[in-house]
């Protein structure tokens, strides 16, 4: 009996081992090759009939004639177009419950983290995936002066820790042209932060560290911006407020990005001079922006300003994020620039371009397969890969 039980035990283990290996050998989910599509890598020229080789969720090869390892799973995408997974640099997806479309001005201090408030079970994430959006920077609503910390996260993935690309990295401010004392207050705070830094530098320099200066969390947040550790992202509406912040950048030298900035095109040259990036208003169809503004986005880009689109979800749907680029093309933007505005530009502005934003060897296999020209409104998304995993397949109506 003992021997039989041992045999049975060994046999069972052997089965488990083999099936385990089998699973591994028969092709991991995130290892495969896409063959035959028109691929737009964004940071290099588009390739007809290309092959993309993905191994363990990373892109390991891209080109026209690539030799494929034996036994690799091949996905036929002839006649399709492939673009990188889209990057949305400013959204509120998953932070508010879906039935609260309003942004409540929260008294959030810079020390609060969006990470702690994420709802991962909402159907909203799948909507983003369907739209080809694979990376979002999401966080709470913008308070009047300083907002909470955001998180840069993939829209799909079983393991939350793996989905997170980055925590924070920015300080948010909002100015809406109301109240004359806004700008002087912000300036005064930056001056205080500068002096706070000096105080601490002096303290660090002292041999005898008897009494450290009092800690001030909000000044620390500003100090990080002054030191260049964080980007200052300003939600701005009126053109003259843009000028005010550009001058503040001249004075304090921090890295600056504008969000929304519907009038940025009116002062395009001033912005271009300081090499400040602009995350433009969502120009998607649901928001009725004037024709001048839509044309203005093209003016902005042509003046040399790096532009990115965003959804500010739920203000504009993540599902149609791609159409921001389509509309920009309609109003005169070059196709390559429009594609950059929803891929590599936002990735660079969110400082995650080492991982996402283009189809390059070494980057994450975040890929969107469409059944027609990527910018045409009539084209639809057929497949979306996030970290090499098939997150969405239009042929299978059921979602994962």
């Amino acid at each position: 009996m003992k021997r039989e039980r041992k045999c049975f035990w060994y046999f069972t283990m052997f089965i488990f081992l083999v099936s385990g290996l089998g699973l591994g050998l028969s092709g991991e989910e995130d290892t495969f090759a896409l063959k035959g599509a028109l691929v737009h890598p964004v940071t290099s020229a588009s390739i007809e009939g290309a092959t993309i080789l993905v191994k363990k969720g990373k892109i390991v090869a891209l080109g026209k004639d690539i030799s494929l390892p034996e036994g690799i799973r091949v996905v036929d995408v002839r006649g399709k177009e492939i673009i990188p997974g889209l990057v949305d640099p400013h959204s509120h997806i998953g932070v508010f419950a879906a039935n609260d479309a309003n942004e409540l001005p929260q008294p959030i201090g810079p020390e609060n983290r969006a990470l702690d408030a994420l709802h991962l079970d909402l159907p909203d994430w799948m909507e983003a995936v369907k739209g080809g959006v694979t990376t979002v920077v999401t966080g709470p609503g913008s308070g009047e002066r300083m907002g909470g910390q955001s998180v840069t996260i993939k829209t799909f993935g079983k393991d939350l820790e793996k989905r997170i690309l980055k925590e924070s990295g920015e300080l948010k401010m909002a100015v809406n042209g109301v109240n004359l004392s806004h700008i002087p207050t912000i300036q005064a705070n930056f001056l205080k932060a500068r002096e706070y830094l000096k105080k601490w530098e002096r303290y660090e320099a002292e041999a005898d560290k008897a009494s450290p200066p009092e800690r001030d969390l909000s000044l620390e947040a500003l100090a990080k911006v002054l030191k260049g550790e964080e980007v200052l992202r300003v939600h701005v509406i009126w053109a003259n407020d843009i000028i005010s912040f550009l001058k503040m950048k001249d004075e304090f030298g921090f890295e600056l990005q504008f969000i929304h900035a519907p009038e940025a095109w009116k002062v395009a040259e001033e912005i271009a001079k300081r090499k400040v990036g602009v995350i433009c208003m969502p120009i998607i169809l649901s928001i009725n922006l004037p024709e001048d503004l839509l044309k203005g986005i093209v003016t902005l880009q042509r003046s040399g300003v790096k532009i990115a689109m965003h959804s500010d979800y739920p203000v504009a749907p993540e599902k149609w994020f791609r159409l921001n680029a389509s509309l920009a093309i309609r109003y005169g933007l070059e196709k390559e620039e429009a594609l950059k505005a929803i891929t590599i530009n936002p990735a660079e502005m969110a400082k995650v371009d080492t991982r996402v934003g283009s189809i390059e060897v070494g980057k994450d296999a975040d890929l969107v397969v469409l059944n027609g020209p990527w910018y045409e409104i009539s084209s639809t998304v057929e497949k979306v890969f996030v970290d090499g995993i098939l997150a969405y397949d239009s042929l299978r109506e059921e979602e994962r």
Partner: protein
Amino acid sequence: MKNFRRTKLVFNSFLPLSLTLVFFIFCLGREGDRETQLLAIKGGTILTMAGERIEEGVVLIKGKKILAVGKEVEIPEEAAIFDAQGKHVLPGIIDSMTYYGIRPFDLNDMENPVTPENRIIFAYYPFGEFMRGKEGINRDREILSGGVTSVYIAPGDRQVIGGQGAVVKTWAESYDELILREPAALDMTIGDTAKYEMKREAKTPVTRMGISTLIRTNLLQAQEYLRKKKEAEEKEGEEKEKSPLFPRDPRMEALAALLNQEIPARIEADFADDIRTALRIADEFGFKLIIDSGLGAYKLKETLAEKGIPVVLGPPTHPFVQGGEVSMTRELYREMNEYNASELIKAGVLTSLASFGFGFGRFGYATQGRWLLIEAAYLAGFGVPDEEVLKMITINAAQILGVDDRVGSIEAGKDADLIILDGYPLDIKTWVDEVFIDGVNVYSRKGGRK
């Protein structure tokens, strides 16, 4: 450690500095053409506001500046010619008190009666219609139709100390070129408008005494601040290193600029008593003073003349607009005198005429400055000679605002801000035909294209 920090500091400022220099040179290079463009406005009657009236004269413009003006001016071959035959040529009109370009919600900080750190320049919005229009500074046809080329803007009169005003142009090629002088003055109000809002909240100031105390207390604090700052700066070497950092306070810095006579105070005061209060405080703290509105200024004309205090008068056809709750309206009517301007001028007080324009209701574009010539014409009927009244909206305004090195008269070296009228300037039927700012024809009455 010390050396490293210094190096770091130098390096940190050197790099951006040198880059700026390179960029500056690059810009200059680009601007080359613009700087040398020649334009001659010839044939018109030129009222220079610098003493001369030139019949059939020539104004020669090079780039943004006036090169020469006179009867016999040699016009280079390559110059473009603008025919002003039969027309009058004047310097661009200067509105020395208005809220043009300031949206109504930006006028005053209603929470706080004293905000010297606020600077109106952050609220100047010369970009036309919200989210519509073209790139760059907007050419506002409403204000330009009245020939207004420069304005003094400041926070509104609902605060005791509203903040720092600015002198800006109504158009320029770039945002920076719009600014003639900033900060140009510290804006204050001694009168009922500065207190009526606060009455609802029983917050100071509720009375004139409160207003005066607020101003004086803040100025005393500023004096103390200056003293401490001087002390901190005079420390040297180790003592400096060891002592606590002197915290810079923008609020105090603004008041200090006033005390150091870097900028004057613009105090809006109508009753003679309020003007007296202003004079008293100015004497106590030793700052330069300009009276705004000054409906009762004629009662103190000798004192004002003696102390060299200028007065910026409001439009004679509608001297003031007070909010509903202001109780002293009737008394103010009694204070008024149609010959205010003429008495002040005869006594030797430097005066200008301003629109005090503000956005009304939803129609919001404070462009009342466009009627300054008509207001001036009205004033000419009440004892002010024509030449004087025209000076009140040009060179006098420029002098009071401290920008007469740049604008206010047609003289060589000044900015090419000019207007061409189709008749005598003080004739009701006269229209402004053309407006030039920095030598660019920004407005043409016929035509209407930007």
